[in-house]
C-alpha cells in the first residue's frame, strides 16, 4: 500500500466520525466504556474457546449497521493489521499438539484451536476499536477519556497526536514527492536517503513543536488544556451501556451457540 493511499484511508476514518447517526450521537464516554467492556469480555474467554465467541460479532456488526459505516472498509483495515495476530499465534499448532476432537471423527491439534481463538479475538477487538474511532470524533474520545479520569497530560498528548498527524503526514508526503521527482530507477538510493529524510522530518518536527509551544504560551497556556464542554449522560447512553454490558456478560457466562443448538435439538426431538 502506497503512502498516499494509507493517508487517504486514515482521512476517511476521520471523516466517517463526523457523520450524524444514532451511534455517532451517543456520548463518547458510553462508547468508550462499552468498547472497553467488550475488549475485556473478549479476552477473558479461555484460550480454546472459538464457538462461544462468535455471538459477540453481533456488537461490531450492529454498530457498523446503525452507524452507517461501510463494513468492507473496516474489514479491510482489520486484515491490514492481522499479521500481528498471525505472528503471535502461528507457533501454537506446532507446540500444542494434543489431539482434540472437533466433530465426530475429525480431530486436530489443540494448537490450531487456540490459534483460531486468537484470530477471532483479534478480529473482534480490532473491529470494535476501529468502529469506536469511526463513530466518535477523536476529540470526543479524548474528552471522554479525560472525564473518565485519564491524566490531563496524557489526553493533551493524544489531542496533539491527532491534530498534527495530518500535518506531519502531509509534510512527509511533500518530501517523498520531492525525492521521487529527482530519483530515477533505483528509488533515490533507498535506505540511506530514507534515513536522512526521517532525520529531516524529525528536526522540522522539533522546530514546529517549539513554534507551537510559543503560540500556546502567547495565549496564556499554563499546563492544562481547558475545555468547556459539559456533556451529561442521557438515558439513551445509559441504555446503550447497560444493553451492551448485559449482552457481553450473557455471552461470557452462557455458551450461546451450544444452548441454541440444544434448544433446537430439543424442539426437533
Amino acid at each position, binding site marked *: 500500500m502506497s503512502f498516499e493511499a494509507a493517508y487517504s484511508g486514515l482521512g476517511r476514518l*476521520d471523516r466517517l466520525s463526523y457523520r450524524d447517526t444514532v451511534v455517532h450521537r451517543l456520548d463518547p464516554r458510553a462508547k468508550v466504556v462499552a468498547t472497553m467492556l467488550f475488549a475485556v469480555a473478549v479476552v477473558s474467554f479461555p484460550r480454546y474457546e472459538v464457538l462461544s465467541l462468535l455471538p459477540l460479532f453481533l456488537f461490531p456488526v450492529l454498530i457498523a449497521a446503525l452507524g452507517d459505516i461501510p463494513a468492507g472498509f473496516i474489514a479491510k483495515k482489520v486484515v491490514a493489521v492481522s499479521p500481528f495476530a498471525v505472528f503471535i499465534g502461528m507457533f501454537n499448532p506446532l507446540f500444542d499438539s494434543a489431539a482434540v476432537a472437533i466433530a465426530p471423527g475429525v480431530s486436530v491439534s489443540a494448537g490450531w484451536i487456540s490459534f483460531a481463538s486468537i484470530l477471532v479475538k483479534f478480529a473482534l477487538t480490532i473491529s470494535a476499536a476501529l468502529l469506536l474511532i469511526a463513530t466518535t*470524533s*477523536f*476529540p470526543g474520545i*479524548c474528552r471522554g477519556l479525560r472525564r473518565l479520569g485519564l491524566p490531563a497530560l496524557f489526553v493533551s498528548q493524544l*489531542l*496533539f497526536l*491527532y*491534530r*498534527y498527524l*495530518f*500535518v506531519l503526514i502531509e509534510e512527509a508526503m511533500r518530501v517523498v514527492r520531492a525525492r521521487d521527482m529527482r530519483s530515477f530507477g533505483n528509488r533515490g538510493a533507498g535506505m540511506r536517503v530514507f534515513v536522512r529524510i526521517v532525520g529531516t522530518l524529525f528536526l522540522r518536527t522539533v522546530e*514546529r513543536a517549539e*513554534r*507551537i509551544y*510559543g*503560540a*500556546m*504560551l*502567547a*495565549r*496564556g*497556556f*499554563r499546563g492544562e*488544556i*481547558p*475545555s*468547556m464542554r459539559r456533556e451529561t449522560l442521557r438515558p439513551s447512553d445509559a441504555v446503550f451501556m447497560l444493553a451492551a454490558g448485559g449482552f457481553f456478560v450473557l455471552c461470557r457466562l452462557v455458551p450461546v451457540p451450544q444452548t441454541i443448538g440444544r434448544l433446537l435439538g430439543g424442539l426437533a426431538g
Partner: protein
Amino acid sequence: MSHHLLEFKDVRFRYPDGTEALKGITFLITHGESVGIVGANGAGKSTLLLHMNGHLLPTSGAVTVGEVPLLKETRPEIRRKVGVVFQNPDDQLFMPTVFDDVAFGPLNLGLPPDRVRERVHEALRQVGALALSDKPPHHLSGGEKSAVAIATVIAMEPDILVMDEPAASLDPKSRRSVIGLLNSFHHSKIVASHDLDLILDVCARCLVIRDGAIVADGRAAEILSDATLLAENNLELPLTLQGRPAREGPRR
C-alpha cells in the same frame, strides 16, 4: 490611553550562538497607530516581533507595554495586552476544532463559560468564520486557517495586535479579505511583511530594519515610495506605485 503604548528603548538581543540580531532598537508606538515593519530576509523582523510579547527577552535595553516593563515575571500580563498572530497558521491552530482553538485563550484568561462563548462567537463573526466553528483545523483551506488564526488572538481582546506575514501564501481574494479585516480593527497594529502593498493599505507608519537596526521610520506612503531606500533593503516599490501599464508585458 497610555496602556496602549509600546516602547522599545535601545533593545539589543544576542542569540545563544553569538549572532547579534538586534543592535539597539528604539521606537515608540502610541494608541491606535498602525505600523508596518519591513526589511530584507534576516534583517531581524521576526526577532523583533518575538520581543513584543516576551517570547524572547532583550539582552540589554527595555521593552515597555503600557506601564508594564517586560520582565520574566510580567510576561503573562504582557501577553494579555499584546496578541501575536504567527506566520504559519498550522502552528497557531493546535486544538482539535476551530471553536476549541478560539476558546483556548479566553479560557486561559479564566473567563466564565458564557463570556468565553460570547467572545468566541464575536471573534469568529469578525473574521467571517462563524460557519467553521465545529470544523477541525486540518479540514480548512489556507485562507480560512489565516482568518481563524486571527480570531484566536482577537478573542483575547488584546490592546495591541502583532502580525507576522498575515497574508503570506494566500490567494489574492483571501489576501484582500485579510486586508479588509485588518483595516476594521481599531487596535494598535504592528504588521511585519514583505507584502509592501499590504503595508501600504493597512499601515500609516512604517519602520525599515536592516542588520538589527532601524534605518528609517516615518509615514508609510513616503517610505514606501522611496525607491532608493527600498532597493538598499532588498525591497522594491509596491506594485501599486510602480505605475506599470497593464499591457507592457515582462520587462527586460
